[in-house]
C-alpha cells in the first residue's frame, strides 16, 4: 500500500509563450503510515505535485502507481482513488457551500454512494475528530470563525475516511493557537488511525516538530529527501533556495561554534532545551 511516482513531469500551458515546467522528473515513494512534510517556496511545484497524487492533474510524462497499479491505466477508478487519497486544499473553507455544517461534511461520503446511516456516522465522527461538537451541526458554515470553518472543511475530507491525507498549508492565515490545534489534531490522527499524512508547509518549525520525513521541492525537483535531521543538516543549501532551517537549529549551530558541547542535529525547541541543560550539567 503505497503511492509511487515514477519520473513524473508536468508542463503548464504547453505550446504557449507562458509554458512552465512545474514538475521536472520527480520520482518518489510514499509508503504507508508515514508522516511527510513537503516544503518549498511559492512556485516550487509542491501544490502541483500533491494534485497528481489523487489524479486531479494528469502528468505530462511519467507514471504514478497506487498500490502497484498505474492510476492512468484503463479502468482505474479515479473516484475510488480520491476516496483513498484525501486532499485538503489551501484555504479549504472557501469550498463550503451547504446550509449547515453537518450537511456540508456529509457531501464527501454521500458522493461515495454510502447509505444514509453510514454517511451520518462518518460525518459525526469526522466532526468530533476536528473538535467540533454536535452543537455546531445546525449552524451555517458562514457564521463560524475562520479556524472553525477550516476545521469543518477538513472534516469534510476526513469523513471520506481516506488512507492518505494530504493537507496543503492547513495553517495558512490562522493565529498561533489555531495553528497548533490543527497540527496537533492531524498528528493525533496520524497516530491513532495510522494514516499516511502529507503536510505541505513553508513553516520549518511546524514541519520539524511533527514529521518523520521531509521532501524539499525547488524548481519542480525534489532536491532533498530524508528525516528532518538529515535535511536540516543542509541548512546552508536550504538558504540558497530561499528556505531556512528551524530557528533553533541556527542557535544550536552557533552554540557549537562557540565551543559549547552540543549535537548540531537538533531541530525542535524541546530537543534543544534538553541538550543545552545536559551540556551545562556536563560542564560543571
Amino acid at each position: 500500500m503505497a503511492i509511487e511516482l515514477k519520473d513524473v513531469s508536468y508542463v503548464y500551458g504547453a505550446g504557449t509563450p507562458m509554458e512552465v515546467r512545474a514538475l521536472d522528473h520527480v520520482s518518489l515513494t510514499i509508503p504507508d503510515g508515514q508522516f511527510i512534510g513537503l516544503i518549498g517556496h511559492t512556485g516550487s511545484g509542491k501544490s502541483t505535485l500533491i494534485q497528481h497524487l489523487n489524479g486531479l492533474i494528469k502528468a505530462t510524462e511519467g507514471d504514478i502507481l497506487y498500490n502497484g497499479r498505474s492510476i492512468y491505466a484503463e479502468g482505474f477508478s479515479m473516484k475510488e482513488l480520491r476516496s483513498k487519497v484525501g486532499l485538503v486544499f489551501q484555504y479549504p473553507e472557501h469550498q463550503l457551500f451547504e446550509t449547515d455544517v453537518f450537511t456540508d461534511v456529509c457531501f464527501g461520503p454521500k458522493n461515495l454512494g454510502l447509505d444514509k446511516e453510514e454517511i451520518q456516522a462518518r460525518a459525526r465522527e469526522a466532526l468530533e475528530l476536528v473538535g467540533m461538537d454536535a452543537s455546531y451541526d445546525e449552524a451555517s458554515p458562514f457564521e463560524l470563525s475562520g479556524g472553525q470553518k477550516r476545521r469543518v472543511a477538513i472534516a469534510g475530507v476526513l469523513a471520506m475516511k481516506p488512507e492518505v491525507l494530504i493537507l496543503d498549508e492547513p495553517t495558512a492565515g490562522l493565529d498561533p493557537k489555531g495553528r497548533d490545534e490543527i497540527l496537533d489534531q492531524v498528528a493525533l490522527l496520524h497516530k491513532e488511525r495510522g494514516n499516511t499524512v502529507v503536510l505541505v508547509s513553508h513553516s520549518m518549525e511546524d514541519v520539524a516538530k511533527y514529521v518523520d520525513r521531509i521532501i524539499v521541492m525547488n524548481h519542480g525537483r525534489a532536491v532533498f529527501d530524508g528525516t528532518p535531521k538529515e535535511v536540516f543538516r543542509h541548512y546552508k543549501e536550504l538558504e540558497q533556495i530561499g528556505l531556512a532551517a528551524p530557528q533553533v537549529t541556527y542557535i544550536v549551530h552557533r552554540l557549537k561554534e562557540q565551543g559549547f558541547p552540543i549535537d548540531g542535529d537538533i531541530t525542535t525547541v524541546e530537543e534543544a532545551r534538553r541538550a543545552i541543560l545536559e551540556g551545562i550539567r556536563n560542564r560543571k
Partner: protein
Amino acid sequence: MIRDITIGQYYQTESVLHRLDPRTKLMGTLVFIISMFLADTWIGYALSAVYLAAIIRLSHVPVSFIVRGLKAVMILLLISVGFNLFLTNGEHEIISFWIFHITWEGIRQAFFMAIRLIFLIMGSSLMTLTTTPNQLTDGLETGLGWMKKLHVPVHEISMMMSIALRFIPILVDETDKIMKAQMARGADFESGNLIERAKSLVPILVPLFISSFRRATDLAMAMEARCYHGGENRTRMKPLRYENRDRLAYLVMAFYMAAMIALRSLL
C-alpha cells in the same frame, strides 16, 4: 479545460500592432466589421482576406493561436452554414426534398457566410490578442469622451468594464480551484442526466458567488481607502497620444475602406 478559450485573450509579444494606440485598433476593428458587410463579390472577399492576412502577419501572433479561437464558435458557424445551404431559394436547383433545396445560390451564400463569420471573429479577436484589457478600456474611455457632454457616465462604465475584465482570469482560477476541491471530495460533474448535472453545479456556484462578493467588498474598500471618487479631475499616468504609426494606420484603413466601397458600387 476552461483555459482553451482564446477569444478575448491577450497574447504577449512585441509587434507594431501591440504598440498602436488602442483607439486606432478599436476604429480599425469597426472598419473591418463594416467592410465585411460591404463585401459581396469574390474580389471583395479576396481583398479583405489579403488585408486580414497582412495584419495577422504584422501582429506576430501565431496563426494557429488565432484559429484555435474559432473552435468556440464552430457550432454557430455550422448552423448558419446549414441554414444558408439548405434554405436558400434560387434558380439553379441541384437537389430538392421536402422544404430543403440545395441550389448554386445557396452554396455560394453559405460559403460567403462562413468566410464572413470566420473573418469577423479572427479580425475582432486580433484586437483583443494585441491589446491588454486595460488599454482597451482606456481607449474606450478616451475615444468616447465626447459622450460625457451627453451625461453618459463614460468613466464609470469603463472602470466597471476594466474591473470586470481584470477579474475574469481570477474567477477562472477560482472556479478551477473550487472544482478541484469538490472533485477531491468525490464530486462528479461529467455523468448523470441534465438535472443531476445542474444540481452538481451548486457546490461550485455557491462558493464562487461568496468569493466574488468577498472580493467585491475588498476591492471597494481598497478603492475608497485610496480616495477614489469617480472620473472627475482624474489624470492618467500614461495619457493616450497618437503617434505617426497611428496616422499611418488610419490612412491604410481609409484606403481599404475606399477600395471595399468602390468594389461594391462598381461590380
